[in-house]
């Protein structure tokens, strides 16, 4: 196994989590007179953080289970410890986070001139919370990072956003928080289940993986977790906060939101909701599959008719995340690998799309498709980058999107044929709305004289897109180094879910009575939980 190691005397994962926050303080310490220095400091911090995160990939061993674990007693009174660790699932997501944060900082150089110190320090604080969420293995620690994420994002949208930013910021905050408090109840409930079953108070995820959860309560606990994650993904009926937040957020905010924050939802399903409550997850599988497929089709159809490029990309996220869910719910090797790969792909391609829209917006201050046209002639290099990213987003073979989507459909076809067939319609639709948009923006004559003199990509902007383009082709042509590292963990996840489903069933059967007698709650409680679903 890969034990914890230290860099500069600090345990590696802690360093990775907290270095951006320390950097954020550094950004705040930039004197007001030289405010513009803030962006340089922030970029140095974010770039260093990305470099720091590379050993995570290189030193990662392709084995199942947690690696580089750290554990320190923290709230000893209630049995919570500061427990961090990574496996294949979280490793790639952490790398995605560090990369996208660095690129977001770089992309904001000219876009954000107002209060740069606050802006960059919030972005870096957000990075701490995001990485913390991915590596936390204690439910309290996880929940703290999960909630702490809201605050910087709220400010990023609310202060540096567009016209309806305040509305968007509050809606984002309230939606996410409403989902997560139900999860907190479920966390506490499971914690007491663990105590009544073992006599030990523990919030440790690895302990919880060994706990048989009575079938009767699983449904309620699963739903509480699932609603929290479904809001974040966002799955179909819970998606309404997303277009608003995306459209109003500044470019970097959209990139982080789409690239990383949405993955928290899918990550949460795979790490917590499904393995902890496998029987309930299987029971509710048809509903989840249905919502995933509805999301794929609905997101694509709504994206098709958007007059606003940013909104189009936002709705395309709903569609893509539907694919991620579909692949995950297949619960087989292909589906899970495709799902994880597609999380990364979506971060790269949708992140890049938002960055591209940001480039346009910075030049023309409009996002309406009808205000463009003929951009290919004016900004040829930009158009080529846009084309490649768009093709990756619609999963053209040779790009990263293809590998992910193919694996997802393969897995889904084996597990849930009907849903896979309907979902493949979404593949076609995604080509339709993307190409339709691309055609209107890029081709034809230049209809607006303002567009005649738009400058092409600058050096700094190239620096933002080149890493993403490399990843598009690398993952598209040779995804083996990535897949090889994550597959043992994903296989372990699949088998964990199966083992736990069996464990919970047999524990229930052996007890000879419903284990619900162990519940730390009266039967009336779940009713309240059910009616409270937003």
């Amino acid at each position, binding site marked *: 196994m890969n034990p914890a190691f230290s860099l500069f005397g600090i345990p590696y994962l802690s360093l990775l989590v907290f270095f951006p926050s320390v950097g954020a303080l550094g950004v705040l310490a930039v004197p007001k007179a030289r405010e513009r220095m803030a962006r340089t400091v922030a970029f140095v911090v974010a770039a260093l953080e990305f470099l720091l995160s590379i050993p995570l990939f290189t030193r990662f061993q392709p084995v199942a289970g947690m690696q580089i674990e750290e554990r320190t007693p923290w709230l000893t009174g209630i049995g919570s410890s500061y427990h961090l660790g990574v496996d294949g699932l979280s490793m790639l997501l952490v790398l995605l986070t560090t990369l996208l944060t660095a690129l977001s900082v770089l992309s904001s150089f000219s876009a954000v001139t107002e209060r740069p110190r606050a802006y960059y320090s919030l972005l870096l604080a957000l990075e701490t919370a995001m990485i913390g969420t991915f590596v936390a293995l204690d439910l309290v620690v996880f929940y703290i990072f999960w*909630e702490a994420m809201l605050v910087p994002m709220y400010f990023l949208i609310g202060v540096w956003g567009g016209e309806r930013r305040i509305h968007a910021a509050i809606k984002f905050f309230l939606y996410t928080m409403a989902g997560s408090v139900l999860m907190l109840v479920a966390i506490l409930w499971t914690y007491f289940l663990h105590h009544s079953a073992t006599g030990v108070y523990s919030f440790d995820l690895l302990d919880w993986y060994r706990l048989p959860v009575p079938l009767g309560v699983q449904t309620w606990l699963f739903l509480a977790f699932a609603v929290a994650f479904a809001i974040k993904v966002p799955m179909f009926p819970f998606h309404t906060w997303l277009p608003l937040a995306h459209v109003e957020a500044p470019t970097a905010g959209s990139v982080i939101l789409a690239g990383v924050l949405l993955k928290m939802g899918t990550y949460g399903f795979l790490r917590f909701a499904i393995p902890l409550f496998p029987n309930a997850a299987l029971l509710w599988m048809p509903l989840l599959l249905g919502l995933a497929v509805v999301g794929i089709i609905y997101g694509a159809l709504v994206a098709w008719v958007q007059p606003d490029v940013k909104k189009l990309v936002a709705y395309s996220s709903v569609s893509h995340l539907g694919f991620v869910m579909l692949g995950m719910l297949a619960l087989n090797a292909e589906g899970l690998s495709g799902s994880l790969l597609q999380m990364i792909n979506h971060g790269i391609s949708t992140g890049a799309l938002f960055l591209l829209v940001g480039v346009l917006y910075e030049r023309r201050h409009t996002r309406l498709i009808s205000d463009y046209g003929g951009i290919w002639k004016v900004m040829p290099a930009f158009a080529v980058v846009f084309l490649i990213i768009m093709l990756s987003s619609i999963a053209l073979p040779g790009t990263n999107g293809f590998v992910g989507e193919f694996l997802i459909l393969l897995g889904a076809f084996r597990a849930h044929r009907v849903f896979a067939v309907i979902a493949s319609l979404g593949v076609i639709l995604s080509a339709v709305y993307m190409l339709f948009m691309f055609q209107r923006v890029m081709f034809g004559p230049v209809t607006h004289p303002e567009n005649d003199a738009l400058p092409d990509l600058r050096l700094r902007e190239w620096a933002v897109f080149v890493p993403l383009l490399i990843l598009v082709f690398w993952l598209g042509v040779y995804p083996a180094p990535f897949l090889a590292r994550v597959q043992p963990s994903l296989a372990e996840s699949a088998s964990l879910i199966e083992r736990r489903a069996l464990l919970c069933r047999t524990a229930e059967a052996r007890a000879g009575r419903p284990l619900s007698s162990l519940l730390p709650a009266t039967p009336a409680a779940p009713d309240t939980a059910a009616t409270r679903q937003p």
Partner: protein
Amino acid sequence: MRPALPPLQFIMSSTDAMSLLPVWVLTGVALLALTVDLFSRKRGAMWSAWVSLIGLFATGLAIWQVRGLDRTVFAGMVRVDPFSQFFSAVIVGVTIVSVLFSWDYLKRTEILRGEYYALMLFAALGMIFMAQANDLIMVFLGLELMSLALYVLAGFRLGRMESTEAAMKYFLLGAFASGFLLYGIAFLYGATGSTNLERISGYLIESPLAGSPLVLLGIALALVGFAFKIAAVPFHMWTPDAYEGAPTSVTAFMAAGSKAAAFAALVRVSSMVLAHVPITTASVLEVVAILTLVVGNVVAILQSNLKRMLAYSSIAHAGYALVGVIAGGPDGHAAVLFYMATYAAMTLGAFGTLTLLGRGMDERVDVRELGGVGKRHPILAALFTLFMLGLAGIPPTAGFVGKLYLFRAGVETHHVQLVIVALLASVVSVYYYLRPVVVMYMQEPSGSPVEVSRSGAASVALAISASITLVVGVLPGGLADSALRSVLSLLP
């Protein structure tokens, strides 16, 4: 047959006297603060402020001296145990911070008079008595000492209609509450033959008459009295008016101190009396808690005056803390202690920030006027945001950990519905706690921008409140352990 009572002992040993050291010190300081004011017409009030501040630190030292002691003194009237020491420390801390907030605020609003500080110290003394009370009469005495001082303090802005109104409402309704409490005590005395909590508890355990209507009536009336003081719905009517009209530094003191003291008494009474009543009072309290959470949080949304908004927020927080009282047991009670300490820091910080808004007699406490504060006063705005996030229970602040402990105790004792209501209420609360943040950072000033007063003393107080809010949020272990150790003395 009632159990024969042992003869009352009024002889006080020197250790008994020692164990009351903090109370002696505080009484002396309060009297001294009252006296020094007389010697100089011009500077007397500030002397009195200095005396109070130094005296409060001395009281803090005295509490440190008697730490860990567990004795019942004054013929069972007063109990000096870790529980009361925890609350004494919280109360002294609250008073120190409140004095610091008053320092320049009184000068600028031109209500600087020496008796202010003396009254504050007497109120603090009453609060400590409430935490130490081992006898219902003592609870009543402490409550009255505290309340009388606070009535005067609430009306301290002579000539200001709102201040007088606040004092009047607070006094009338407070007197009403005292009446209920006293009536309840009378019934309990009639039923059990004693006002001493230990004897009442002993009687209730042994007697088959524990569920008699007389006992229940007494308990119900006493609970009404407590509900008034902690500002629980439906006995919360006085809170918004009193909080709004009173000088802001007094509001800060009331919101943090009198709530902590009332919860101290409530926790002790509930662990010694309510726990032994056969029919469950928890279900009554549960209804009160749910009402408090819902009404407090929902009505707060409608407020644009920040003092009123924080008043409803303080009502709502009584609801959260009640979850711990209802859960009971060491975990539940320790959660209440932890929550009171952290809530005090956050609410003091929030009201303390308000004392700085506006210059001179001009006080600006309307949320709509805060536009642009984030840009022109970044540190003040950041601190206010921190307190708002803390009160909303967002990690990594102490407010989150406090709620975590409370809700953990609630779920542990099968009050899942209550916890769900409390959590959903806390989602609602995010809306109004974020509102000033939105205005400060995201809106331009409408009309003339808010001036901010400068005050060294208040800066120190804000720094204290903010560091408690953050440090306890990240490393709650120490405070949580000491809260848990403190409630162990409540166990029989």
